């Protein structure tokens, strides 16, 4: 068997039926006849970008409170339904996800709809849930990896909400009260901002009928525009969270791209060559882990965070303090190399074969399918995207990779945030290396 035989033949077919519910929400259903579970994913446009100033964490806590009481059901009654039907529902800052054993699909979908439309935000539950979040945020204040990531996003996005954690800060969460959650839900959890995707062994029309009925009282509301964000220009910036630890967490990168960028497919392939390919097939893992033994965890990626707004190019390594300069120099060298030299044919073929061939493997779970449907809908991908993608990726050339690397990587304008036993001067010195 030839190793490269047939990757382009591995096409995933994801049949989708679309509905517009009476409330105004969009519904996509993909039937998967033998699946043992059903999964629902609901994305709500807005999320924590709609937090009121000083009340950061508002969207996050609103989502987290959905299962603490809805309609006439108490939190205990909701738990009773879920635990006995193998179901789970989790509210988030920008939507909700649910899963259930297939035979109880209707029970769990009905319940999810009730949580979406009619959460009650009981005062005692708001207080206790907020306290648990405060406890978590207090611990995270001293957690180097969390703080390194937070500093990195701040260096890239400045004060813009894109640089903030959805969970908010200790101080902002401490200010949140029940009225803030009720108001947030009333204003922002509205049907016209929602995309719902369901995957499981159920007739699409039955899902649509159930959700149409269960969500009929959902406020339609108004769609939400996407203002173009004003973000700080790319430039060298550094920050350190000092901590006595064995390792330093290093985040290096800069502002990235939108999902709608026409270079996105070539950037996916570039990422797999540079820092996202599995095992030791990508350059940073090969060089920094395999050859230099600098780290157990090392990776780099620009496409993964691309969204409606620009994501970030992020290179991460967890390593001993003495190895940080070599690691930073290594990242910069690989960024420049992929800009300066065309990728070799064999290396490019490996990356493309993986991107195409792994499609077949990555859609086994119903939740993954539902998640993809939401993404496709949000970014306007055509329904045959998965069938067409292999051809798109197969057509990418070494010149394409070099062109997008030159256009979208900026080794001369990287920020570096590090957390652990390290000085900021060490980062600056390493960034200045050629």
């Amino acid at each position, binding site marked *: *068997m030839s*190793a490269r*035989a*047939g990757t382009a*033949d*591995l096409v995933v077919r994801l049949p989708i039926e679309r509905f517009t519910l009476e409330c105004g929400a969009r519904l996509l259903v993909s039937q998967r006849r033998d*699946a*043992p*579970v059903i999964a629902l994913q609901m994305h709500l446009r807005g999320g924590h970008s709609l937090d009121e100033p000083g009340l950061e964490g508002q969207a996050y806590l609103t989502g987290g409170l959905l299962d603490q009481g809805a309609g006439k059901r108490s*939190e*205990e009654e909701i*738990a*009773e339904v*879920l*635990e*006995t*039907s*193998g*179901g789970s529902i989790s509210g988030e800052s920008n939507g909700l996800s649910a*899963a259930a*054993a297939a035979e109880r699909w209707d029970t769990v979908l009905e319940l999810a709809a009730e949580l979406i439309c009619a959460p009650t935000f009981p005062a005692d539950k708001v207080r*206790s849930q907020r*306290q*648990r979040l*405060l*406890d978590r945020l*207090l*611990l995270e*204040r*001293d*957690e*180097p990896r969390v703080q390194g990531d937070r500093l990195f996003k701040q260096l890239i996005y400045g004060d813009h909400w894109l640089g903030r954690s959805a969970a908010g800060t200790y101080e902002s969460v401490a200010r949140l009260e029940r009225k803030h959650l009720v108001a947030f839900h009333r204003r922002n959890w509205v049907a016209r901002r929602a995309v719902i995707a369901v995957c499981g062994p159920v007739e699409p029309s039955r899902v649509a009928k159930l959700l149409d009925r269960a969500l009929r009282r959902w406020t339609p509301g108004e769609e939400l525009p996407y203002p173009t964000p004003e973000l700080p220009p790319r430039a060298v910036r550094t920050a350190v969270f000092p*901590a*006595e630890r*064995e*390792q330093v967490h290093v985040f290096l990168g800069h502002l990235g791209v939108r999902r709608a960028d026409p270079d996105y497919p070539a950037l996916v392939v570039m990422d797999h060559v540079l820092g996202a*390919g*599995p*095992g030791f*097939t990508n350059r940073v893992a*090969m060089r920094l*882990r*395999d*050859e230099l*033994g*600098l*780290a*157990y965890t090392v990776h780099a990626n620009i496409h993964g965070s691309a969204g409606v707004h620009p994501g970030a190019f992020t290179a991460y390594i*967890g390593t*001993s303090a003495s190895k940080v300069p070599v690691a930073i120099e290594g990242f910069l060298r690989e960024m420049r190399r992929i800009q300066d030299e065309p990728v070799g044919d064999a290396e490019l073929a*490996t*990356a493309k*074969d*993986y991107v195409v*061939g*792994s499609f*077949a*493997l990555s859609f*086994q*779970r119903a939740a993954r399918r539902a998640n993809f449907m939401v993404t496709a809908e949000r970014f306007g991908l055509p329904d045959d995207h998965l069938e067409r993608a292999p051809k798109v990726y197969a057509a990418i050339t070494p010149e394409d990779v070099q062109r997008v690397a030159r256009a979208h990587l900026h080794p001369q304008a990287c920020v570096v945030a590090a957390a652990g036993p390290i000085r900021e001067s060490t980062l600056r010195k390493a960034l200045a290396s050629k």
Partner: protein
Amino acid sequence: MPHKHASKSKPSASHSAPAKVREHHLANGMRVLIAARHSDPVVAVMLWYRVGSRNEREHEAGVSHFLEHMMFKGAERFGKGEIDRLTTMLGGSNNAFTSCDHTAYWFELASDRWEKALEIEADRMRALALEPAEFNAEREVVLEELSMGLDDPWRRLTELVQSTLFLRHPYRRPVIGHADALKRLSVAQMRDYWRRFYHPGNATLVICGDVDPAVALERARAHFEALPRGASYEEADPFRPAETPEPGQRRVEMHWDDQGKRLCIAWPTVSVGTPDDHALDVVSTLLTAGRLSRLQDRLVYEEELATSISTQSDTRVEGGVFWLLAECAQNADPRELERVLDEELERLRREPPSAKELARVRAVLRASEAFENETASDFAERLGEYATDAHWKLAIESLEHVLAVDAKAVRDCAARLLAPERRVVGWCTPKAATPKAPSRRKNARRGAKR
């Protein structure tokens, strides 16, 4: 928790198996388990070796896990980097993991190309390179992995508790080993270890997914049957002391530079697949699975003494551990958390659970079936783990065993195994302040006994 045993404590299982399993034995002693299921065009191939940190002598501590890394650094046919390169070109995934009882290698590939995994596994079982330069470079990676774990307070705490719970048995050591032993380890020692344990007579091959079982068996024979059987497990396995339970509760304590108050309690328990193993799964579900479980309900939601709490029945080949982990709420007194926990554990040891409670537990266990075996890899892992540590049929039958546990068995099992005098209690507290133990117990340092 320190060992990769989580899946064992959950029932997969269903009254109807997720796939029909066929068991075969090659002439050289290699066991082959084949489970065909055609829901996706995917095949999971796993090779399990009956070797883990429990088989290590003191001076070899960490060699099982380090060897697992070296299995990706080249063999005779597939040189360094080739395994990842081929897997990637085939659009597949690979990985590996080591526990105290087994080491497993995993491939997931599309069903028109899964055989490549057999070629790779046969090559590195037969002729692993272990080049000194690669060995030295990879040792640095393993030491970085170890450092990563040392930065995790939960990992530090559970390792401290485990080393107090097992005073003699190798289960006391973390699977990754210790830096000093890793730094002294030689290529020759690793090669000797590989020779002793990496051969067909000590391996189970699992092929699960979109395959024709007859073809899969024929391909397994073609790649593995010519390999020599190797030494018997009994011959290869070094002597290790049996653990004699220490009487009396032991308390240990450590500090961390954050505000967390982390509690870890561990009891020594039983081997995989024993009747008590099933009863402990019920106990764990009763205590912490789901919002309505006893400890979640009372400690997290009603009295707000903990922000999170979990239990795990971590049964292993030569005994096991029942773990309880809780994070004390910032506004709560750790002594109160321990007092209420003790009340609940005393109730568990004294009274059988009510019929309603047991019905909830059974519903939770039954309903988890669908998620436990959703993909080919899910089922392959379950099958291989049970096959290596106990018997593969448990992968299919464990739910029935668990559902058959009655209220009295729950109480009796808890009374016997989860008694206070058998446990180790560990706290990780802020550097500045240390919570006092409940007044009826004295605080003591690591290893001390009452």
